[in-house]
């Protein structure tokens, strides 16, 4: 049975190992100080790897010492987690999709698509309201960032209209 701490310990060890690998690839310079660019990254890498193992060991010991009731509770802790992760991934996909379209379509249009799409995905009823909020929200944010704060947002297909 895999507990959260086991997963956390394994993840930390993996991150530490990767980081150590790339830290060891850093080329020392003859102009560097005695610690060098590698120095502290190696320390951080070893510490992360070591603490990951410690967490893993703590989790294993806890599982071995756990009562049957605790085992059942720990098994329940993961129930539904896969589904929840997929829902979260869906939102992430919308955000990533925005990154892909914003330069082509422009800031205003992209937001006008993103906001209602995300709202419906998160549970809003399909109808005029998400579209109204999307368009209104996009216009307000565009006015705030592009016009009021003077940030250069992507213009995209509306470049010719000065938007």
């Amino acid at each position, binding site marked *: 049975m895999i507990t959260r701490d086991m997963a956390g310990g394994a993840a930390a060890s993996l991150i530490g190992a990767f980081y150590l690998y790339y830290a060891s690839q850093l080329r020392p310079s003859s102009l560097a100080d005695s610690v060098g660019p590698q120095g502290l990254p190696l320390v951080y890498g070893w510490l992360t790897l070591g603490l990951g193992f*410690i967490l893993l060991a703590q989790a294993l010991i806890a599982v071995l010492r756990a009562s049957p009731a605790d085992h059942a509770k720990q098994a329940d802790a993961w129930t539904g987690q896969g589904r929840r992760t997929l829902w979260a991934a869906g939102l992430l996909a919308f955000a990533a999709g925005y*990154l892909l379209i914003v330069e082509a379509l422009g800031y205003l249009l992209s937001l006008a698509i993103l906001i209602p799409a995300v709202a419906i995905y998160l549970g809003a009823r399909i109808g005029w309201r998400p579209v109204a909020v999307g368009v209104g929200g996009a216009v307000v944010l565009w006015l705030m960032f592009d016009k009021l704060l003077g940030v250069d947002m992507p213009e995209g297909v509306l470049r010719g209209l000065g938007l």
Partner: protein
Amino acid sequence: METLLATLPFLLDPSILIAAFVGVTWGILGGALPGISPSITMALLLPFTYTMDPGAAIVLLASTYVGAEYGGSVPAILIRTPGTNAAAATVLDGYEMNLQGKAGLALGISLYSGFIGSMVGLILLMLLSAPLSSVALAFTPPAYFALGILGLSVIATLSGDSLVKGLIAALLGLIIATIGTDPVTGSNRFTFGSADLLGGIEPVMIMVGLFAMSELLAQASQRGEVNKIRSRPRIEFPDWPLAKRLIPSQLIGSTIGSFEGVMPGAGGTIASFMSYNEARRWSKYPEEFGKGSPEGIAAPESANNAVAETAIIPVLSFGIPGSNSTAILLGGFLIHGLQPGPMLFVQAGDVIYGLYAGLFVAIIGMMIMGIAMLPLCVWLVNRPLPYLNAVILALILSGIYSIHGSLFDVGLMLAAGVLGFFMRMLRFPFLPTVLGLVLGFLVESNFRRSLVLSGDDYMIFVDDRISLALLVLSGLFIFGSLARRAVAALRKENRTAFSEGSDG
């Protein structure tokens, strides 16, 4: 007294009054937008200051800084998104109070504590510019390194139930801080050939990702399971018993903030976390922290608002900006041909006294405009969750893009959001990661510089008195926390043993 008398006439100067109110309003707006840092908010005003009177121009910029430091707490409390780096600590208890239906009170405490911190900072700025700046001069690389270690030592108390998880989280932050250019040799580290990573990763991207984006991902994962808490759309200031309870945490925050503000590179983020930690340590109700403690808002807000005033001291006294925001302020001086430093007090004293008056007006203005704009913010938080979250996502994506105009930055923020989502799932705390991220550069650069100065003699960290004092303090914090954990674990075991024996 002489300073006070010289400042008084400027309180009636219309240009100073207008600049202060406009600046603080602009600052609150900018600070409340996640991704728009105080420095960006100030930088956007710089072109407008060219044609202004020098005194009014400086007041406009400084007031913007004051407003932004408060403004960052508004989204921190309402949507769990720090509007500025320094408001990250306010998220901890501010958002919890929001979930308990006390958003109005949380915002009122934030505003009131910000007012206290700002006033304390201003008084210190006026009275102690010269003495405090000489303390800043005394900080050497070993002392800065020790200051970073002191900041990291609070991880011992912020790690929740698992110190190991807290340390791993802190190391994640330190690891992220190593990405970019090596602070001593200038060589590239962990950039994987990407030009976008050469300058490192701005902490605000990671913070917005960890706090805000991961919250959106978590809410998306719980579709239909979340009970929306409706906040009362009214601002509430603390009553006298609560205000009395908040005094110690406000004093702690104001003191730490004032000290940290003077230290170049230390800043509002470190001050707010250290204040939070110290307020919890000295509180009569430490168990409430993280669960909606009013002191958990009062301390960091007093601190980061005090920083906004005392951070100006190194700029005025030596022309040395200690942060991005004060660098913009320095730019404002230079545009008008004013060279900050000791001679500024002699050659352009009216600008200095006008600045003091303007800051005073800005702090009062912060209260007025903060109250005026908050009902709008509270209305926003009561909107249906799908729409609110969709607009927040759009706001976050826009805010991060606006930092450098780079979609790569937005991608980094999304990656931090994924990291935060999994950290939540695996019950890792965020705060140590933020601390590691913010302090990583300070710790590494000054550690290595110190060894270069000493010829690799580690005794330099002990020979420097300030460094030694700070390291001893760090050791006491860590030891105290470990001892408390050990005692708590022993008590838990004793209770378990007792009950097992009883069942016998």
